[in-house]
């Protein structure tokens, strides 16, 4: 383990498998054709720190453009971080190259969002699933074929279909192929990047159940990236909420959903539609105004202050709120939660909507 002191360490009693330290991914914006000058940067991930504990599912939620997918890719070094470290079992991945990086990748895999785009349409599903084994030189041709059949069976596809092409399968079955491919090299850690958002409602539950079953059977650790908060609540042990490249709140599942502290989390949760008209009538939604600002020039201070119902002038628009542990295992980045003037919010007696209303009246 690294000696650096970091925020947001695990509290479930488990040990850390992946640690992300002050991760930043900035995509340069250039101008000119031959001599490209850098004229700005998209701050996709802007100082992210969290741990993923062995055997857990960490849900990573946020709206589109908040950097959650970039985070997943940067952890696997599919996109190289601009600064910061990604520690896998204590070893920094950000500086690994070539064979040594490939060696590590065997232990970390990814399941992609779009089962139509993420499978090569000119390869049979047997070849698609067998390719990681080939790349990592695992087993003889015969052993690989046996392994592919076994994997297909594991994900619930008839092994005799291994010579078929992706177009012969439905979206749900293709996603199962994508899952089998991720499992082929027997990884410990899988980044699931919106694995069900492209699927139909009645198929989603099948894939979620499969992912949970596989986690139990193989002791997998998941980073589950999604925008659907109901699904994340169902599958995750802990949940991190992202806004414009930063984690704004991180807590155990039950705590985050029952007692969300950050005003963004509160607004996000209140906006999730519930398929029950009786429950919908009783809700008091916090409707945010405006859109998510551009990550090219994120707002000063707290990135959320432009839309926050409780934002305080001279504080939130000036200072960056650090991600601090407010209660054991509950981390939040908000001046109104962590500041000395707001113990009643920290204690969970009031929520920030009350502060916002009180502030408006005063």
């Amino acid at each position, binding site marked *: 383990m690294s000696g650096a002191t970091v925020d947001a360490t695990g509290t479930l009693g488990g040990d850390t498998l992946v640690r992300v330290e002050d991760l930043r991914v900035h995509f340069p914006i250039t101008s000119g054709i031959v001599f490209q000058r850098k004229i700005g940067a998209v701050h996709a991930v802007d100082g992210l720190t969290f741990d993923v504990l062995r055997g857990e599912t960490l849900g990573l939620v946020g*709206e*589109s453009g908040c950097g959650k997918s970039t985070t997943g890719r940067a952890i696997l070094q599919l996109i190289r971080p601009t600064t910061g470290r990604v520690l896998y079992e204590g070893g920094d991945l950000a500086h690994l190259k070539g064979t040594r990086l490939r060696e590590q990748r065997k232990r970390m895999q990814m399941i992609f969002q779009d089962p139509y785009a993420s499978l090569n349409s000119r390869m049979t599903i047997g070849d698609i699933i067998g390719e990681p084994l080939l790349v990592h030189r695992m087993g003889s041709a015969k052993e690989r074929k046996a392994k592919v059949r076994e994997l297909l069976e594991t994900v619930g596809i008839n092994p005799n279909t291994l010579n078929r092409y992706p177009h012969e399968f*439905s979206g*749900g079955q293709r996603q199962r192929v994508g899952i089998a491919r991720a499992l082929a090299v027997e990884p410990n850690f899988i980044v699931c990047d919106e694995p069900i958002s492209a699927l*139909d*409602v*009645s*198929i*989603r*539950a*099948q894939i*979620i*159940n499969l992912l*949970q079953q596989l986690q139990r059977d193989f002791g997998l650790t998941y980073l589950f990236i999604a*925008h659907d*908060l*109901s*699904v994340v*609540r*169902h599958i995750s042990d802990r949940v991190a909420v992202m806004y414009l490249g930063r984690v704004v709140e991180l807590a155990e*599942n039950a705590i985050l*959903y029952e007692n969300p502290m950050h005003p963004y989390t509160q*607004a*996000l*949760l*209140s*906006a*999730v*539609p*519930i*398929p*029950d*008209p*009786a*429950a*919908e*009538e009783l*809700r008091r*939604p916090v*409707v*945010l*105004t405006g*859109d*998510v600002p551009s990550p090219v020039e994120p707002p000063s201070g707290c990135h959320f202050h432009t839309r926050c119902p409780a934002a305080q002038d001279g504080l939130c628009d000036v200072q960056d709120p650090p991600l601090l542990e407010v209660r054991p295992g509950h981390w939040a980045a908000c001046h109104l939660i962590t500041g000395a003037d707001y113990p009643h919010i920290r204690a969970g007696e009031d929520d920030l909507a009350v502060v916002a209303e009180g502030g408006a009246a005063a």
Partner: protein
Amino acid sequence: MLPGVAIDSASMSVDGNTLLRLTELTVDFASQEGTVHAVNRVSFDVAAGELVGLVGESGCGKSVTANAIIGLTGMVPNAAVSGAIDFLGKDLLTLPEPELRAIRGRDISMIFQDPVTSLNPVLSIERLMTEGLEVHLGLSHGDAVKRSIELLGEVGIPKAANRIKDYPHQFSGGMRQRVMIAIALSCNPKLLLADEPTTALDVTIQAQILRLLKSLSREHEAAVIVITHDLGVVAGMCQRILVMYAGRIVESGPAKPLFARPHHPYTIGLLKSVPRLNEPRADSLQTIMGLPPDLAHLPPGCAFAPRCFLATDECWAAGPELEPTDEGRMSACFHRDQLRAGETEAVA
């Protein structure tokens, strides 16, 4: 003017107030693999000012139904449309194109799923907004611009007067959807078809757009058909729900009782397969086994029978018709009485 066969219409809405009545609407597409039965004898009514949710998975025929109402299926060469779509006494399916064009965009308008691709990128918001106002309402360009600015303000676009010369790419996804709503409402339509209006948007923006649609439909007294796969979207917004599966309406009724106790096994399956924020976490989700059927090769009996937990021999032999169960409710299931009495809960 009303077609004679209105008995099995999937609505019990008050007579005389009916705005739209679909009678046995059928849309088939000829394809290499045989005839695809996209919409199969769909009948329902929409009352003036009513908010109706049309729910189903991709390929169930919900968008094709909407396209048929607004007369877009007539433009598809391999489509065969039959039945009747009665809108204020006129059958939209037999109306000549010029008359249809006068209704389309004025009395009936549509909001599409993807705000990024459904606004013409080379036309300014001014052109997009004023076109309908000038053509349908005969406003002068100056008046049309004035009205457009008012409408853009109404849908929540800040500094609308400064932004009217902008092009679609200068707006965010949520803002583009607002522009589309403003265009759709510009001629005070009596019926608004919203095809997955929030699917491409984030949750916080979705909440804004749904609220806006609801309040605008009240102010403009427009009926809205919200087409979606997301049961949550219609739960808080619509008064009446129509559930479609494999080209047919399998259940219809007022939202509250329908969500509380569905009378069709498919609705039960759909509701149980989505995790909810207001319920305790379960270890695993209930699933609907199998896949939706191929619309070119539908099974002879009930199309849902191969996936149904209640299916009996009867269901495999013949398809059940949509018949009344409770007040204002209908279900196309042979086991509807069992479901109505709540006898199947242990099985489900």
